[in-house]
């Protein structure tokens, strides 16, 4: 927890109302998302009890397993959910667009859209992951069952990638943008967290008494309501009770979506969604090519590659959020990874002629009135000009807690020896400079699985 985020919680607690922790939306919100609220049967290994699912607030489909221990009913549920989910997903695989690759020398295609699933909380993702594991290897029965399993596995694995918006939880999406005046443990209850945002501190305690947003049900609901219904075999009544149970959560999900749509999207949200569309397109191709279901466990090489991918995505996501949002950048300013300063001197036409060829290297002197914790030689970037590198040449105290930083600029000024208009910060301009960088990091190269080194278990047995 950063001090800034903790302070926001304290402010919310004192104000009796949630406060923003973001000034822009850091997440793509689909115009037609699929909301899915799974409920599981207590005690069983991920046995579905019900799901409310749909892409329109007024039209939820309710799937119920009236006898959750009955295997046939469980598969009927999987088939029904599979039909619904596959129809939704496949609707996004209709229109493709060309994307230039390899500096325009080649072209590849990706779908113009991608599906987006919303579940209430991380428990919902875990339920889908395990249900995907349960169904993806089935070969008998309805063909939608193994396909559902493979899609659920795809979504659950995408949800682990920082910044991906293919499978999103309402609880995490809200806490990315608002701080409540309660603990994060209490925020895990969707109704309670949303009440802080919508109505203020008096409402959450009442909301806590409402149904938890699954997948686990309340023990007293199990004992007093559900158990008698399951024993008596009254399927119609069970469905009615579960509909009543799920409806408030369904409404909370759509209210969450509305809230988030009310925020302006961050500048880099679109490029992350592009990456999601790439991942979706690649998986559609994998299915079309008759690729195998995802393995139970990744092999050593696949696991290492995945870890590398997740780490790179996490780093990129952290930088992009800071560049998109001054409130996120403020956290980096507090820890010294960024500072704000005003340009006091500028030499925009400075040419460095020490090399083989003259190059444009303007210098600016900025004055910061907050602590500067960078060293000479450090490469800084400003979110206003992400393509431009500013190298620290010198740091001098300027009295009264101020610091002068001399910077040499390169990049983002056009190809000529005269900088393009407004590409060099002018005197009087206020800048935020940070050690965070969006520079592309090379993708690590991993061996072929057949070449797995002995340190990692050697090549897998075939």
């Amino acid at each position: 927890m950063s001090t800034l985020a903790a302070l926001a919680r304290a402010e919310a607690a004192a104000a009796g109302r949630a406060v923003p922790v973001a000034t822009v939306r850091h997440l793509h919100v689909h115009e037609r998302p699929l909301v899915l609220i799974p409920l599981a049967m207590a005690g069983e290994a991920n046995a579905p009890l019900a799901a409310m699912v749909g892409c329109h607030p007024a039209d939820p489909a309710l799937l119920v397993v009236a006898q959750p221990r009955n295997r046939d009913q469980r598969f009927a549920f999987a088939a029904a959910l599979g039909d619904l989910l596959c129809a939704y997903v496949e609707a996004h695989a209709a229109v493709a667009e060309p994307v230039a690759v390899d500096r325009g020398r080649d072209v590849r295609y990706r779908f113009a859209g991608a599906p987006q699933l919303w579940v209430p909380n991380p428990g919902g993702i875990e339920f889908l992951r395990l249900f995907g594991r349960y169904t993806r290897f089935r070969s008998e029965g309805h063909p939608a069952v193994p396909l559902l399993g493979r899609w659920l596995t795809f979504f659950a694995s995408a949800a682990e990638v920082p910044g991906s918006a293919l499978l999103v939880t309402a609880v995490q999406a809200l806490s990315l943008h608002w701080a409540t005046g309660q603990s994060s443990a209490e925020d895990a209850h969707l109704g309670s967290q949303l009440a802080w945002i919508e109505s203020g501190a008096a409402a959450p305690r009442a909301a806590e008494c409402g149904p938890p947003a699954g997948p686990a049900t309340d023990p007293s609901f199990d004992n007093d309501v559900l158990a008698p219904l399951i024993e008596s075999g009254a399927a119609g009544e069970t469905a009615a009770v579960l509909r009543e149970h799920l409806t408030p959560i369904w409404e909370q999900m759509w209210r969450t979506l509305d809230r988030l749509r009310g925020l302006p999207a961050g500048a880099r949200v679109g490029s992350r969604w592009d990456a999601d569309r790439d991942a979706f397109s690649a998986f559609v191709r994998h299915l079309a090519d008759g690729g195998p279901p995802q393995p139970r466990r990744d092999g050593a090489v696949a696991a290492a590659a995945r870890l590398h991918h997740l780490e790179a995505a996490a780093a990129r996501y952290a930088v992009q959020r800071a560049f998109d949002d001054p409130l996120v950048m403020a956290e980096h300013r507090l820890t010294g990874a960024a500072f704000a300063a005003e340009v006091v001197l500028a030499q925009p036409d400075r040419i460095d002629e020490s090399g083989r060829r003259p190059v444009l290297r303007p210098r600016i002197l900025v004055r910061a009135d907050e602590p500067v914790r960078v060293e000479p030689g450090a490469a800084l970037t400003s979110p206003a000009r992400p393509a431009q590198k500013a190298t620290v040449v010198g740091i001098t105290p300027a009295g009264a807690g101020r610091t002068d930083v001399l910077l040499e600029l390169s990049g983002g000024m056009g190809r000529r020896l005269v900088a393009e208009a407004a590409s060099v910060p002018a005197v009087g301009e206020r800048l935020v400079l940070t050690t965070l960088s969006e520079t592309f990091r090379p993708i690590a190269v991993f061996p072929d699985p057949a070449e797995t080194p002995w340190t990692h278990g050697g090549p897998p047995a075939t």
Partner: protein
Amino acid sequence: MTPPLDRLRGTARPKRHNARTIAALTGNPGCSRRAVLDAAGVDKPALAERIGFPGSFGQSRFALARGTAFEAMLKADGCALLREVLGVPAGVELGYEDLGADADHTLVERHRRTEELLAGTPGAAMVDHPLLTLEVAGQQVFLEPDLIAYQAEGRIRVVEIKSFALVDGQADGAKVSAAAVQAAVYVLALRTLVRRLGADEARVSHEIVLVCPENFTLRPTAVMLDVRKQLSTLRRQLIRLRSVTEVIDAPPAGLSFDPELPPSALIQALGAVGARYAPECLSACELSMFCRHEAAGTTAALGRSVREALGGIATVAEVLDLAAGRRESCDSSAPGPSAGASGQRVDAPDDAAALLRAAARLRAEALAG
């Protein structure tokens, strides 16, 4: 039991400690309130309800039924399935002793039989419904492990039967760690017993066997868990808890949690024993709703990490005063109810104040656009 303890409980019957409550105690060892109430055997759910802060700590019938069915399946036919899962080699005669059903009046007898069995020649045996004792905060507590497997080479192992699923070798982390702490409680109790019998405590293995259903079936599978880490945490925290005995030996005159008392008197009595509320209590302690209410306005109520990030300052009001510069330095800089296990603060008070002022300035600037 000492008379002061009985007095604390009033006319109610005592609630028994078990591995689960001991594990919960170690989750928040600094909470004197929980330690005292548990040591006195106070019925916390009833107390919480009486003072108007009921919690929902029931267990689902479905979960209980599955747990019972799984255990019964393992123990059927003289533990046939369990032997298979534990990998008892064919030909090894593994005796099976069931010490009888769980009931209050069999406690002493079962404990005597457990001791007798463990003192006997170390043959191969499985002991069902054993009864162990452990000293917690100055009191003897009876504990009932699922099973003690007594292996041929004389090593004693605790077997913990749980009904959560192990899918592709992975299970819910929170459930596994809860099971590990519970098993560590049993290992500690067994080691105490073995030592008392004059044997080497290393005879009790620090590796426990966790038996769970595999994947999405009821087919059992066994995995070994090393509980050394849990054991050392447990030992350390049980020592800490001993200091609570002092409170119990000399409770303030008239302190009573008798359920017959009016709620206002009970609330007053609770106020006399300090709590250390943290949001984690909400899933572990039946009295947590009351403590949360009492902790309103403190940074501890927002979570340990929030409190630490705010420099350990105790109240929200003080944090905001410091952040706004209405106050120069914090006077409540003494470690508050949850300033970390060792009472350490993350920052010196003035650093904390400066950091808060900087944070407030940056936040205001960013929000102003």
